């Protein structure tokens, strides 16, 4: 639900990073924050518990410059991944323009990935969105760990509609900007259809 302001020539888009607990959603935002020039970013806000688990959301506003004379801003959000934060997680999807699903590549987390993916589909539907049509990108995070599932197997398990899929090691930045760029592109392309 992008907000186009013709008066101030601005467009704001909301992108949500979704995925199971500890999959690296916040790490994605943290890396983007660290690597973006100060003029292009706002504060990174983290509503987290004392042990740094996301409680409500992280928020990072990015100003990427102008497209066709419009200042283009992306508001990046993460959701809390832990199962019992379901009520808060659902709230963050309100008015979303694009979704990144961050999957944990470790074998023992495949069930958690599948569960949260199902959860994402349902919560999108409750907000009136369809995962088959909304701008959507998939990321396989933690590719540097030893006990990971192969790319092909994860793709078979988690890829829904041939969405762009990236391998990532979020704390080191591998795949982070590729993922962001892909979802931003889909969001802007979607806007161009309206």
């Amino acid at each position: 639900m992008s907000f186009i302001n013709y008066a101030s020539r601005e467009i704001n888009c909301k992108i949500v990073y979704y995925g199971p607990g500890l999959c690296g959603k916040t790490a994605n935002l943290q890396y983007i924050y660290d690597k973006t020039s100060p003029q292009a970013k706002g504060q990174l806000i983290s509503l987290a518990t004392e042990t740094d688990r996301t409680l409500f959301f992280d928020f990072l506003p990015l100003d990427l410059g102008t497209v066709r004379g419009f200042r283009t801003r992306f508001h990046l959000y993460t959701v809390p991944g832990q199962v019992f934060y379901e009520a808060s997680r659902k709230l963050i999807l309100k008015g979303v323009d694009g979704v990144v699903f961050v999957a944990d590549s470790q074998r023992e987390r495949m069930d958690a990935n599948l569960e949260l993916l199902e959860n994402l589909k349902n919560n999108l539907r409750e907000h009136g969105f369809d995962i088959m049509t909304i701008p959507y990108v998939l990321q396989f995070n933690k590719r540097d760990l030893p006990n990971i599932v192969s790319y092909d197997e994860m793709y078979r398990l988690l890829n829904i509609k041939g969405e762009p899929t990236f391998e990532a090691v979020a704390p080191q930045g591998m795949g982070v900007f590729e993922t962001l760029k892909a979802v931003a592109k889909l969001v802007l392309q979607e806007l161009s259809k309206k």
Partner: protein
Amino acid sequence: MSMLGPNLVMYEEEFERINSILGRLWVDANAKIVFLVDKNGQQIAAKGDLEKVDTTSLASLTAGNVAATDGLARLIGEKEFSILFHEGERDNIHISIVAQRLILVVIFDERSSLGLVRLRVRKAAQELEEVLNDMANKAAQQGQAPVSPFAEITDEDIDNLFSE
């Protein structure tokens, strides 16, 4: 259902009307800052002493706050809590929902009072609702939304955004 459809599109005329409503509220309520956000956390307009605060974060956290409070309301069988008030040592925040989709925030200190703010907010909220109604009517009359400025966006445009 929202009265404006999924995408909020605002033009110069409405933007100016909204700005002048906020300006009047700012003066009449003796407020430090007055701002308007949509429920998704996008800032629409603001007035007042804005240099000292990060308005983007303010907008996002306000929307998160309202969303969480809406969730609480539904849990106990209320439609919404239309007014939230946070009292601090120096500054206070008054948050109210306008036309079910916008959030009007007033930040004030001891130079004003909750009673005055509530009174002035009520009037401003009515005026803002009129603007929203006019926007909805305009959109309905025009039928189709205007051609998106992004209609002819190219891959190159998008790549340029990310090149630094």
